[in-house]
């Protein structure tokens, strides 16, 4: 099969940019990535975006990128997969190259959220639930789902709110060293635990924020020092009440299993990880589902500091969604931005020992979509 390599990455500052348009953010990230790649001829563009249509009244993002950058009359598309839009867009680029149709693909992701009210954004995000269901009509929300999950996790394990706070604190400490992160102010465990409640037991620091931002990546079949060793995607239950085991997110587990199988490696081989911590609880569960730690024991690994930059399985050295920020369509690509820098040895919170294998996991919905990419330094 054709190998796919990373030739360039780009990312805007994540945060509140009410005065910058979506197009401006999107093109900024694309130009950075294209410059790094030496401005190659691009054969196709994929753009990950979730709610440009619903809260910003802007679609046709693929064509806008091709037109504004003067890439020619090449095929383009917007990819929507809720919070996994970016990761799925990357996978479409990978598949396009592997099929032989394209040599070089530009993949970007973008979201504008900060211009709208929290209630309107929460409402728009709820489009990623099955709205024709008794569950949605009961008033369940995304943070609600992970709140229900966290209460059960506490009930079945020795974990408590303190362990959620330890995830949030670790990711904040990582973001403090990342110049592109949204939240770089120090926080304390007490402050995190006492913050206002969103969906019990999840407080403000346990929930990823609303963010403006964009990220981009240039992929090609031509060789570079960063190889996309595998790309895998899975779906899962779209309703909480359909979960066979509430404390398992099958899409994460299955996308991880497929990615390891295709790459011919196991969780023990991965040197650095970016995980979809849309909530602190999600990170605790994902490190179990991806096989880094035993089921129902992710909280122990967190307590022991094993997922810190200096731990044996560094997770979210960028600050994660919780503190790097979560501009929905850009998130999956910003994970790869951090990992590419980790493999090049140029990342904020650089992991020591020249990491060779890096894994990114991007989640959409309450476990509806999950995408895993494994990158390799070659």
């Amino acid at each position: 099969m054709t190998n796919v390599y990373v030739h360039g990455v780009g990312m805007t500052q994540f945060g509140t940019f009410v005065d910058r348009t979506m197009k401006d953010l999107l093109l900024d990230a694309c130009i950075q990535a294209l410059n790094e790649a030496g401005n190659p001829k691009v054969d196709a563009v994929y753009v990950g975006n979730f709610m440009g249509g619903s809260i910003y009244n802007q679609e046709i993002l693929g064509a806008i990128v091709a037109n504004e950058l003067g890439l020619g009359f090449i095929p383009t598309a917007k990819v929507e997969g809720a919070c996994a839009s970016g990761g799925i867009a990357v996978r479409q680029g990978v598949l396009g190259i592997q099929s032989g149709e394209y040599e070089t693909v530009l993949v970007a992701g973008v979201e504008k959220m900060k211009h709208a009210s929290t209630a309107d954004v929460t409402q728009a995000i709820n489009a990623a639930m099955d709205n024709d269901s008794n569950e949605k009509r009961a008033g369940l929300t995304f943070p609600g789902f992970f709140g229900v999950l966290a209460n059960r996790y506490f009930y079945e394990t020795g974990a408590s709110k303190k362990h959620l706070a330890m995830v949030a604190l670790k990711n904040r400490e990582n973001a403090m060293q990342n110049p592109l992160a949204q939240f770089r102010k120090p926080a304390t465990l007490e402050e995190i635990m006492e913050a206002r409640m969103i969906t019990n037991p999840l407080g403000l620091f346990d929930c990823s924020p609303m963010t403006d931002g964009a990220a981009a990546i240039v992929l090609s079949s031509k060789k570079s020092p960063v190889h996309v060793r595998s790309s895998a995607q899975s779906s899962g239950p779209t309703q909480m009440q359909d979960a066979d085991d509430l404390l398992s997110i099958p899409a994460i587990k299955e996308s991880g299993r497929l990615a390891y199988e295709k790459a011919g490696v196991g969780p023990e081989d991965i040197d650095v990880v970016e995980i979809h911590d849309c909530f602190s609880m999600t990170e605790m569960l994902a490190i179990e589902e991806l096989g880094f730690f035993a089921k129902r024991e992710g909280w122990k690994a967190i307590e022991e500091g094993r997922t810190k930059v200096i731990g044996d399985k560094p997770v979210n050295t960028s600050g994660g969604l919780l503190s790097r920020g979560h501009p929905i369509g850009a998130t999956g690509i910003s994970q790869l931005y951090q990992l590419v820098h980790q493999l090049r040895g140029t990342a904020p919170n650089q992991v020591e020992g020249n990491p060779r294998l890096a894994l990114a996991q991007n989640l959409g919905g309450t476990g509806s979509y999950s995408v895993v990419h494994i990158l390799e330094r070659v």
Partner: protein
Amino acid sequence: MRVMKIFACMNCDYHSVTSKYTCPKCQQGKLQETEVSPKGTVYSFTDIHVAPAEFAHIAPYTVALIQLDEAPVKVTARMDSEVTIGDAVELKGLEEGAFIYTKAN
């Protein structure tokens, strides 16, 4: 309401409160509608303090995942009061397509 409609696979032990075209477990059987008691136990819950625009007027409110007593089925419902895991609950009624549950006496 005295009954809860559920769907059971005619080929394996899969049960769900939602209907499916094909059984997602054995991917062979069709699901058949049956009725069970809506009585159950709180499997887990959360109190939603920050709600989307359409539910903001009732926040904070409690949403629970309820394990039915008579079938291996879980149901998502809104509670009329705060609950905790293990509480016995019963169906109070339907409100705009949502199951509203209350603590059992």
